[in-house]
Structures are given as structure tokens and as C-alpha cells.
């Protein structure tokens, strides 16, 4: 068994084989092992957060991650930024006929590692196989559930609040762009793909934590424009405070991308009260994933929408970009 065949998704013997010999080798939670139609879950807390997402990234493997790690991190992060602790995860695979089993195994290994590190259990799953050329190798869908500790709703945000990012911006977008080999650039850039539950849960009990979001597709700018629209408040961002890695800055300049609009897969935008900003920054910076956390802006009532205060002291509007700079980034 070297390659995935149509029969692997038929629900018959081949499927059974694939699940028992491969999937269960890496995914072995007690909830999953009975292979029943549904998993029974236990919660200590009746308040549950749930999220779902599909992953179609191209290429499937990139420096700093792969589609499996991305799928786990994406689901975990969506739960964590909602003020909840991620607990359980479902995984659905759509695999193209002819996909190398070895690659599937690599993805599963990375799912195992990432989910264990993030403390989430994979409790249910599904596998479908489609004919050659009907999908691009492998797509993954995940659903995650978590227990709510502190509900973070956008209405919490008010004038004077601080806008914090947990680290450098645009790493994932740049990494994937380069990994596609479409540009004549001889460099390798690491994605920031990481599960943020360990970084963010310690913030939950800080008074003044108001709202969080993981800025994936569309980047931080898109998240902020959404916040400004939904709250009818203004946001002022300071260009010289935005953390960007040197390699990301160099390459995005070259390609004409703006890191503010590039995808991140291991970062959060954290909005806090003015008073709590320092405590939150300090806590973030204690964690290896939050070393470069920075306060990049403020909520204001002086104007609506998002405005960037530039390095030379000028001002310009930050708007949502209509053109998807890089499709299939996650």
C-alpha cells in the first residue's frame, strides 16, 4: 500500500485497513478508538465554544508546518481567541486518488504532535477519496470544541483600548508564497504556524482583556477593519510599532506585499483596556510564542475606520483589500 486508491474511501475493507493501520497508529484517543459513528464527550463546564474550518493550503508541506499542523492549530486558535480552552477536535480528510501514503503518514504524525502539545483530543474523523485531479492532494476539515472561560465579545471594545499583536506579522503568508516556487527567490521563510492555547489561556483571568482574533487570511489589517466596522469606532495604528521579521520585510517589499495584510497562523490580535495593556504584554512576552508581542495601536472615537500613523508621521487609511493576494493560504 503505497498510494491512496479510490477503495480507501469506499467504507469497505480498504477503508478499514487504512484507518486501523495508519490513522489509529497516530490518533488513539479513547473517544476515537471504538470507531463508532459518534464520539461521546464529557465537559466539566456547560458553556461550550465550537468552530469549524477547512484547509486547502498549497503546498501541503512548507517550512515551519504542513496542512496537518495547520488544521490543528487553526481550530485550536479559533477556540483560544474566543476565551475558551480547546478540548476536542474532529478531522475529516478529502484525499485525491494516488496521494502517497507516506505523505499522509507525515501529515498524521504532525497532527499527533501538534494536538498533543495543544492538549486537544482527536475524537472523531472521516475519510473520503476523490478521483485523480478532482482535488489537489489533500484537504482537511476540522471542528473543535472548547470550554468557555471568559466570553470575549466585540461589544467589550471601547474608546482608549489598546491593540496588541502577539508577535511578528506576515510570516505564514510569506512562507507559503515562497514555498510555491512561483517567484525567482532563493530563500526559505518559516511559517509561524503554532497552537496559541498555551500563550493565550493565561490571559483569560486578567481584568481588561476584551477581545481577541487570530489574523489569518487578510492579515491584521482585515481584522482591524472588521472591528472598526462592527463597533463603529476608529482605530489608530502606529507603523513603527508593527513587528515584522527582517526576512519577511525584505521579501514582502520585493513582492509588493504589505505584512499587515499577510496571513499569520500563530499570532493573535488582543484588544485590552488601557490599564491592562502592560500586564498583558508582560504576560505574553514571558511565553516563547509571545516574545515579540507589541502594542501597535489604540481604539479611538476621533475618527471612524482604521488609520495608519506612518513612520514619517503621516496618516493614511487602511482598508480591506478586495484582491486576495494569495489564494489557498490555509
Amino acid at each position: 500500500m503505497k498510494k491512496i486508491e479510490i477503495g480507501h474511501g469506499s467504507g469497505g475493507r480498504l477503508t478499514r485497513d487504512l484507518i486501523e493501520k495508519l490513522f489509529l497508529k497516530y490518533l488513539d484517543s479513547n473517544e476515537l478508538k471504538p470507531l463508532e459513528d459518534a464520539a461521546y464527550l464529557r465537559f466539566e463546564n456547560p458553556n461550550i465554544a465550537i468552530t469549524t474550518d477547512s484547509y486547502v493550503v498549497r503546498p501541503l508541506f512548507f517550512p515551519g508546518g504542513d496542512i496537518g499542523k495547520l488544521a490543528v492549530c487553526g481550530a485550536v486558535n479559533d477556540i483560544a481567541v474566543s476565551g475558551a480552552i480547546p478540548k476536542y477536535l474532529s478531522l475529516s480528510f478529502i484525499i485525491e486518488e494516488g496521494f502517497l501514503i507516506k505523505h499522509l503518514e507525515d501529515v498524521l504524525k504532525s497532527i499527533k504532535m501538534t494536538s498533543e502539545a495543544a492538549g486537544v483530543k482527536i475524537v472523531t474523523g472521516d475519510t473520503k477519496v476523490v478521483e485523480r485531479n478532482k482535488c489537489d492532494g489533500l484537504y482537511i476539515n476540522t471542528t473543535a470544541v472548547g470550554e468557555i472561560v471568559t466570553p470575549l465579545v466585540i461589544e467589550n471594545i471601547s474608546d482608549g483600548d489598546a491593540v496588541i499583536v502577539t508577535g511578528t506579522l506576515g510570516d505564514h503568508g510569506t512562507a507559503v508564497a515562497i514555498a510555491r516556487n512561483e517567484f525567482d527567490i532563493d530563500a526559505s521563510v518559516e511559517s509561524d504556524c503554532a497552537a496559541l492555547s498555551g500563550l493565550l489561556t493565561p490571559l483569560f483571568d486578567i481584568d481588561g482583556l476584551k477581545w481577541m482574533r487570530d489574523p489569518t487570511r487578510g492579515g491584521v489589517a482585515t481584522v482591524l477593519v472588521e472591528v472598526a466596522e462592527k463597533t463603529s469606532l476608529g482605530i489608530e495604528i502606529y507603523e513603527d510599532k508593527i513587528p515584522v521579521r527582517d526576512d519577511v520585510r525584505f521579501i514582502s517589499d520585493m513582492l509588493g506585499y504589505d505584512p499587515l495584510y499577510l496571513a499569520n497562523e500563530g499570532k493573535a490580535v488582543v484588544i485590552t483596556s488601557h490599564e491592562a495593556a502592560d500586564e498583558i504584554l508582560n504576560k505574553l512576552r514571558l511565553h516563547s510564542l509571545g516574545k515579540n508581542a507589541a502594542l501597535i495601536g489604540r481604539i479611538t472615537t476621533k475618527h471612524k475606520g482604521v488609520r495608519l500613523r506612518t513612520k514619517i508621521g503621516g496618516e493614511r487609511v487602511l482598508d480591506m483589500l478586495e484582491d486576495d493576494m494569495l489564494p489557498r493560504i490555509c
Partner: protein
Amino acid sequence: MNKSENLIKHIHSLVPKDRKVKIMNVCGSHEHTIAFSGMRSLMPQNLELIPGPGCPVCVCPESDIINAIKLSKRDDVILVTYGDMLRVPTQQGSIRAEGKNFRMITSPFEAIAIAKNHSDKKIIFFSIGFETTTAPTAAILEMGIPDNLYILSSHRLTPAIMEILVKDADIGIDGFIAPGHVSAIVGSNAWNVFSEKYGIPTVVAGFEAENLLLGIVDILRQIKEGIAETTNVYSNVVRPEGNTQAQRIMHKYFEVSNVNWRGIGYIPDSGLELKSEYSARDARKVFELKEVKEEKIPGCICGEVILGKAYPSKCKLFKKACTPQSPTGPCMVSQEGSCNIWYKTN
């Protein structure tokens, strides 16, 4: 106080108090820096920074694009050109939407590689742009190109369009920021005509906001002193005589011609075509291309935008029907186009 703050203070103190001052840039990268640094928000009220004809794909005539689309439909042809060019709209669609055999390249050298790898096809390099892209095209001709590679030249000369601009009283330009990359090739002396013949202070500047501010300061200084000079604040890159080697090979292969600028019209001696000695490489001659009549895009005011007579926001289609995702006019396509830049920063 940091350096930019100082320069901005300087600009405020130098600007004449009693009249409007218009400074035009003629380079998409300059406009990019100005818009993205929010420079306009820091200028005195009576000082206008106007984007001019700095976007090469914006002025490329519709006729050439339509011919490129037609050529790409031939089974024996692969059309190669720069990425932005593929998306420029015409009455017959864009190369990307309507063309058949086409490839994007980032440098003319890739055209050679494609020609070598497809010796059974005719490779047509749709070579567009100002002096900065003409030089590399001349360079591959000088190196020697494969027999199956042809050039569709749609090159334009920056000084020629600037002369049209200074003569237009409607615009009323008080100073030019001359383009840094173009200047590296043609040399800062190429702009002397503007200060000497037309009395317009002209400064060659680079692409950092600070360097541009320095250029603006120098234009205002000249206005205040009542003089007009051509100066260079980008002298670590631009020499007075420019890149003479590049100039020599450009003149060897190309000669000036009367050409159409999209949305603007025909301007004498403002474009470059291959010299007749190289007709065998000239796609226009080899494939007997016919001029297609240009049609105005309803509602699009790109012509006025390029000439600095209107800001993009004056266009009724701006941010409505016309967006970077589906551009109605050429100025919305490339990152050097004023409408595209405006879309992202205003």
C-alpha cells in the same frame, strides 16, 4: 526631532504663502511611497503632490494589447510579457481573459529561456515600459537572441511626456520630481531641459520617504530663490551622465517614433521602435500587425489621472465598478497605477 520631521518643518517654512504650488512625480514607485507614507497629510494646504504618468502599463496603447491577444491565439505562438500587462482591460478583454498561449515573465532573460525550450514555436516578447525596461530588452538583443524570439516593442520615453505636461497650462506644474530608476539610466542631465528651457525646478529623488521629502525641500528652495535648476538628491545611484553603456545599446537597437499613449493620444518622438536593420526581430513587421482604433472606456478618466488633471477619487467608477480585483481601466491594474494606489490608501 527626527530627520523627516525636520524636513517637513522645512517644507512648511519654505512654501510660498500666497499661492498654490504643484509638484508632480512621474514614477509609480514615487507615488507609492508618497501615498503609503501618508505624505500628503503632512504637506502645507497649498502644496499639492500630483501623481503623473509614472505607470507603464497604464499608458500602453490598447491597440498593442489587442494585437498581443490576437497573436497569443495563434497555435504557433507563445506571447510572453510582464505580469501586470496580462490584466490590463481593453474593449476585447485582457490578455489573461481572452488570450490563449501566453506566459508571464519577470525579466527579458526568461523570454530567451522560453524560446530555447520551445524551438518549434514563435515566442513574442511584448516589451513595454519606460527606459528602465527598455535597457534590459536592448541588453538581450545585444547578447543575441534565438531566431524564434520576436519583440513587440511598446516602449515609452519619460522626458517626452513630461514636455507635454509642462506645456499644458491647465496643469500648471511648479516642480518635477524626476524618476529615480529612469534617471539611473538616462542620467540627471536628461532633465536639464525642464529647468533650462521651461524654468521648472526639477529634482531627481530616490524612493525612501525621507529622500522624497528632501527633493520637495529642494524644489521649494528653488521656487523661493526664484531660480530653476536640475538637482539630484539620489546621487548615490544616479550619475549626471547616467548609464552610458545602457544608453549606447538602447540607441543601437531602438529609434524614436510617434506613438499613441493610452487615454492621451499621439505624441511625436515619444516612443521607441526597433530600427529597420532589426525588422526580422520586430513582431510588428514580421506578423504585419495593424493598428486597432482605440475606444474610450465609458466612465474611465485614466487619461486625466495620468496627466495629473484629476485624482482617482474623481472617477465615478472608482471603488465601485472599478477595483483592483476587476479593474475597469488600466490605472487600477498595477501597483504603480494611481487608481490602484489610491484604492489602498484613501
